[in-house]
């Protein structure tokens, strides 16, 4: 599988990573190499094989729907880039 410049632009958009024009060619090459290596999987017959997400096929544990954590908003917001009145500040989204 090789990637063209549009593919890289689309991936960058999906991943929310800005990529400079200079970096695109190198990424095409590197990601192409990785996908070529990965593509050796395609030759394997996996019909009727159940996909494995957890080595023991364990499923998510559930707990009672009760409050189990203390409020630590101030501690957590003290390390945020920008907050005000308990809210995280970001650039204006709506004009």
């Amino acid at each position: 599988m090789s990637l063209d410049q549009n593919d890289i632009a689309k991936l960058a958009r999906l991943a929310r990573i800005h990529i400079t024009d200079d970096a695109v060619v190198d990424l095409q090459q590197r990601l192409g190499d990785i996908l070529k290596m990965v593509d050796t999987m395609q030759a394997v017959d996996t019909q009727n094989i159940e996909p494995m997400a957890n080595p023991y096929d364990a499923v998510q544990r559930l707990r009672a729907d009760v409050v189990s954590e203390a409020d630590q908003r101030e501690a957590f917001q003290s390390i945020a880039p920008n907050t005000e009145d308990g809210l995280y500040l970001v650039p204006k989204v709506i004009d």
Partner: protein
Amino acid sequence: MPSYTVAEILRGLESGEFSSEELTQHYLDAIAARDGAINSFITVTPELALEQARRADALRAKGEAGALNGLPIAHKDIFCTEGVRTSCASKMLDNFVAPYNATVVEKLAASGVVCLGKTNLDEFAMGSSNETSYYGPVRNPWNNECVPGGSSGGSAAAVAAGLAPAATGTDTGGSIRQPAALCGLTGLKPSYGRVSRYGMIAFASSLDQGGPMTRTAEDAAILLQAMAGFDLRDSTSMDIPVPNYSATLGDSLQGKKIGIPKEYFSAGLDANIADAIHAALDEYKKLGAEIVEISLPRTELAVPCYYVLAPAEASTNLSRYDGVRYGYRCEDPKDLDDLYTRTREEGFGEEVKRRILVGTYALSAGFYDAYYRKAQQIRRLIRNDFVEAFKQVDLIAGPTTPNPAFKLGEKVSDPVTMYLEDIYTIAVNLAGLPAISIPAGFTGGKPIGLQLIGRDFDEAGLLNAAHQYQQVSDWHSQLAPGAAEGGQ
């Protein structure tokens, strides 16, 4: 003192040969004097360490010493440490002071451990050479022109250089075992779910597992005892009793069957490493074990499978770094989109960005079935190979790495070549199994690692087999050049 093992240190502390404060100061002095040359620490925490050491000494005086009371160790800078910068070797988290402790940190602290500092790693644990760190590469104490391996390269180098008697590490595709092999240490990756992932910065959540990096198997048993156990705060933690790992170290290996996968000795394996592994297996025969050839037919699929699953999980996990709640934020964002995309462009290094993009590709509409689902199916086939093998044998043995430590810069420009260095370790993470790397010789002055792979949750069996080999070999007690300097 620098050559002391954890077991020797605990005896020395108990007998009063030295106090924790003296010991801690010794290691802090060693770090100050010698870490400049190897760069194994990102953050050293002298004040915290001495405060914890004094508290440990006071507890001992009162007869309230915990199991590891006063033992100084280093934490890989992927474990959250409350009040201490936890960077994951990324510019993204350069300013991140963790507001809470990882369970591993909490449990070790509760046993009395002293934290010397936080060790260097590949950025977000993505690498096999420690060259992707934002804080610069780590050098191998055995040969300063070579890498220490990765991603837990700082932990490995610190212990090998005598700057800490033990360190924590994490292993997603070999990140404890490969640097342990390249630095001449014992490194244990426990079974998936054995050690809590809570507070361990996530890379690939279905593969990540924390474990100890030490000089000996006996030390690894002592550390694992304090780290292992069920944790409600990790949704994939397994509620399985933790045995006494030290109690079975002395058990005989008589009659144990050790499987040798023929695929692990094929083309690409360094000839001297192959010889060293065969020599180690001969020792196992003398210890009473039976060596049986086995096959793990999907060995070559492990790297391709991993390089879909791990980047896919990483792309999801690392979506949290958005410049809003914590960590790096770009200067003067024009709008929200600019905030996200430029923060992530500037905050992540090249390898991390590559993996996020590969993972994004594997999860994107139209490619999900061909990549992500396909890799999950192959993951099951790989695990099935191990399940079959363990019907015939008790343990599986082989080399940890195909090559010894390589030179800085040698492989960093070619990601695929670097990825293939992990061919023997990656399948173990996919299968969720425990495995240990132990020193088994040298080639050209560089350490060689023997990997032992165990059944699900049989860390005790691995530690026993590793310890028995260390009773009849002395590779693990060799010190890297300079590691014994500054002793008292």
